[in-house]
């Protein structure tokens, strides 16, 4: 619960109102939050079958040569 409150506080601290016409920097391609979907999916699958913090079973199927 404390973690949730901390994360919510983080999102609201230090924010200023940025008008749409002031967002040129944020609209650049180098500021995209998410990369290409197909590549993100491949990376997520490799991560799921090669680390313990993401349950390998959570990757949906093996596909890892390890089961």
């Amino acid at each position, binding site marked *: 619960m404390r973690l949730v409150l901390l994360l919510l506080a983080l999102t609201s601290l230090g924010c200023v109102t*940025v008008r749409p*016409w002031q967002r040129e920097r944020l609209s650049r391609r180098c500021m995209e939050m998410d990369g290409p979907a197909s590549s993100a999916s491949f990376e997520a699958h490799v991560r799921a079958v090669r680390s313990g913090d993401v349950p390998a079973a959570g990757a949906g199927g093996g596909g890892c040569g390890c089961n």
Partner: protein
Amino acid sequence: MQLRSLVGLALACGCGRAPQRPARAELSLHGGYYADNDRVSVWNPSLRARVPLSRRVTASAGYGLDIISAASVDVVASASRVLERRHETSVGVQVALNDRTTVGATGRDSREPDYLSDGVSLTLDRESESRDTALHLELRGRWDRVGPGWTLPERATLGSGVAAASLTRVIDRRTLLRVGLQADVLSGLQSSVYRYVPVGDQWFAERVPELRVRGAATVRLQHSLRPTLAVLAEYGLTTDTWGLVAHVGEVGLRWEPAPWAMVELRARAALQRGADFYQGRYASVTGWRTRDRLLGGMATLWPQATLRFMWPAWPAPPSWELGLRGAWIHQQFDDYVPLRARDAGTGELWITRWF
């Protein structure tokens, strides 16, 4: 003309997500390759498509194939190589309820000889009126059938549910922040159906608890240093009821050397404390037992480099993208004797066309 495009982009831009434009059809081909020093290699070609059906409704579909060749030391008592194929298909639909809210549903099916998985996910995306905050909510459920295998003569089941939320916020003219929370529950067979564990002088089938509850939190910050240069940093903490705790940190840099090109360098480092029941030696056959190195203590270093070429050049929305990525994954295992370190390499090539 360029100024008008720029203002249009800036007006539409919300929280660093892709600017909202009339939906376009999209076709993407992706090829991935993984190989490591544990004699595992995987080819992964995949195809994705998105088609707008109306102003509000978009349909999507995807197909991916894993061709796996493995003779891992994890698989005890087998000297032969295993060649296996996994087919994954997905179909989905996204509906824009208004210009700030989108809901989606996706179904997914994964098939390989000893593992079948079906799942569904529901999503909600909503932006604030000022478009400086974006909320993403996701619910996922999955039903897996595992085996049969060496230690399991008949098929067993595994069910899982995931709830995830993330909030992305414009902090100032140059900075974006995203926080995410996720909770997973897995219930059912999670032991490998091929892995044996030494107890005394004998080997017994792996057994791990059938219930696993996991929580994860991430914080990500992106900052624009110059119009064509941005840095990012992310930290994630994961903990679960098996006693596993993982800290994951990531730093990265993105540079646009030309309006049609982008270079990205990223490095991820992870430190993991193993599950409570992970041991090298067990005194008796009662209780949980595993020699799955992913459940032990380990450290991971994962640097990667990406090149993306997009045409036409920014600020116009791209019609073509060609991407290349290479990564190296180094893992050091605390207690896993057969293989104390694993080194892997991945390579990716993708091409996307928007219509």
